[in-house]
């Protein structure tokens, strides 16, 4: 494999709350390679968004604090940069696409002005006409029709799907090395989601950026991601290629997500939900934080007492489960119970 573009190492981000210090991100490590899409999955509160906010230096401080770790962008640790240096990284080397384009675009500026600003900020000499030309080109690239007229419109004159296209255009305006998309299609209808995902794919092909795609939607992950990182309670619990994650999960939480899933193309006998609630970060269970909800652990002592290390099972294949060797029997049991086939039988 080539060198990673972005390496996150042992990242710890904590927040001071009235009830004590919360570790929203607790020792997270993952790599992003050029041209790939890395899917990050997890439920609310799993730390998937806080991780990327930490990468970008966008953690509100106080109450937040990046307490430990490194974020290496081509070898340079972003956590050691000053705010002024970081401003040159954001939007230029690492760009972000947010979930809600209505709140992330400024309603009193035209879409064109906002995109131009993104370009001019990092290239002061470009000149107004050239900037406009670039922006119109970008809007065309992301499939905004009549881009020249649309340049002068305000965000409210765009539909949800069009706004998200404009956000993608803004994100790729400076040919970033890393593109972060945080729930980019969650607010959209399914036919619009399909359009936007296609545009995102195109934008990535165009820039060859390494992309971090954060979503709770496993369908979007299955369609888009090359590799997947699964997060739970602020930690990475499993990583692997998309095929490995969906067809031979090595962590019971991942399997729980898959067995909770309704499928558009398969009739399932029943769903097997994960019992209980996602953990409160204030009061994370001892040992493996998944143990109170885990079917595989069955309350075994080691699950309650020891935090399972994130073991390297193969190249890029990791699992943080004490009993990951028992996962194939567990997968077989769930297949029996739900009628789903994880081995990818069509």
């Amino acid at each position, binding site marked *: 494999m080539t060198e990673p573009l972005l390496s996150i190492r042992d990242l710890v981000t904590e927040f001071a709350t009235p009830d004590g210090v919360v570790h929203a991100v607790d020792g997270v490590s993952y790599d992003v390679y050029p041209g790939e899409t890395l899917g990050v999955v997890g439920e609310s509160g799993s730390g998937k968004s806080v991780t990327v906010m930490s990468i970008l230096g966008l953690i509100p401080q106080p109450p937040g604090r990046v307490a430990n770790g490194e974020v290496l962008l081509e070898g340079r640790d972003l956590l050691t940069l000053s705010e002024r240096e970081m401003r040159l990284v954001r939007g230029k080397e690492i760009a972000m696409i947010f979930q809600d384009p209505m709140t992330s675009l400024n309603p009193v500026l035209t879409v064109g002005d906002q995109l131009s600003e993104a370009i001019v900020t990092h290239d002061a000499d470009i000149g107004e006409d050239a900037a406009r030309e670039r922006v119109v080109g970008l809007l065309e690239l992301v499939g905004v029709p009549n881009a020249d007229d649309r340049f002068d419109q305000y965000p409210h004159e765009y539909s949800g799907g069009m706004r998200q296209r404009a956000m993608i255009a803004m994100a790729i305006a400076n040919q970033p090395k890393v593109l972060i998309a945080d729930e980019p299609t969650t607010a959209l209808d399914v036919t619009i989601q399909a359009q936007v995902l296609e545009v995102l794919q195109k934008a990535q092909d165009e820039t060859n950026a390494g992309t971090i795609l954060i979503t709770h939607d*496993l369908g979007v992950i299955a369609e888009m991601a090359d590799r997947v990182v699964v997060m739970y309670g602020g930690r990475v619990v499993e990583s692997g290629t998309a095929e490995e994650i969906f067809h031979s999960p090595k962590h019971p939480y991942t399997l729980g997500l*898959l067995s909770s899933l309704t499928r558009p*193309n398969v009739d399932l006998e029943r769903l097997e939900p994960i019992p209980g609630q996602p953990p409160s970060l204030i009061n994370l269970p001892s040992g493996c934080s998944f143990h109170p909800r885990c079917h595989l652990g069955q309350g075994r002592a080691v699950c309650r007492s020891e935090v399972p290390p994130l073991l390297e099972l193969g190249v890029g294949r990791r699992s943080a489960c004490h009993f990951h060797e028992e996962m194939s029997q567990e997968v077989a049991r769930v297949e029996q119970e739900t009628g789903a086939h994880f081995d990818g039988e*069509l």
Partner: protein
Amino acid sequence: MSTTATAASEQDLHARSPLGTEILRVESLTKHFPIRGGLFRRQVGAVQAVDDVSFAVRAGETVGLVGESGCGKSTTGRCIVRLLDPTDGQIYFKGVDLAGLTSRRMRELRREIQIMFQDPYASLNPRISVNEIIGEPLRIFGRYRGEHKGKERVAELMRLVGLNPEHGNRFPHEFSGGQRQRIGVARALALDPQLIILDEPVSALDVSIQAQVINLLDELQERLGLAYLFIAHDLSVVRHLCDRVAVMYLGKIVEFGTKHEIFDNPTHPYTQALLSAVPITDPRMRGKRERIMLEGDVPSPSNPPSGCRFRTRCWKAEEICATEVPELTDRFGHGHPSACHFAEPRAVLRVDPS
């Protein structure tokens, strides 16, 4: 004489229908919201949220109403419980036309038809305890019957939906999203309804919690013989829960059929496009199925296209589509009506094995 007749029909309404008999029939339901403008706030137009929608729900079954934002699925649900007054059309519950009812009789009927909402944060009063939330419908209908019996019934309802009755004195903010939806289900069940309108009941929940609520709805239906009208945009959930499915686009039903007819044999281009856009949770299928990419966005319901409302985004559209509204009729003898002049089955979810 007339009192006995009323009493008799009242009896009928509250008696459980045998499984499979029709309990709800919606005929030509239309809801237009006026757009007012000008100096005197005259009506200058109308948002045609629901236009000439007809379908039926049988006892014990789940009918799905699916479509994207603004297709009129929630408005349809709200008209049925009369949270909105329909502009036109009839809604029959066990043969009784709801529109013709006095507000007193309508109130009685509300016992039988309940609604549950999407947002577990907005649909529960934050200032009253869960006991009071679930007990409220009982009190309104005089079924609380004293502190002891009332509390007993509330506790029973909480157990039924998988909540601990000891938590009845807590307030909604002390519960997670999934638990709040359970409170919503318990409240909807309090009066032994026969039909529950579920308006996106799991959309706001994380996937593991979503599955818990889906299983709960499934179990309750089996145990209590409930009929559901399930309003949702998530087609995978609809496939799992529904027996029959109506697909809506811009205020109209474009296709209606059994779950398998709709998912395996869709005939309307919009249904096909919708299904082909749904992500499949299997990375090995990536790029192996046909994708129908729709151009553009849904037109405004205040000025819908003439003829077929889908024609502006349809790859099959011809002249007739602009001039003639396609009727929702069974075009292939599959018992599966489709509102397209050029309807034809196309299995978009099937994957090319090569």
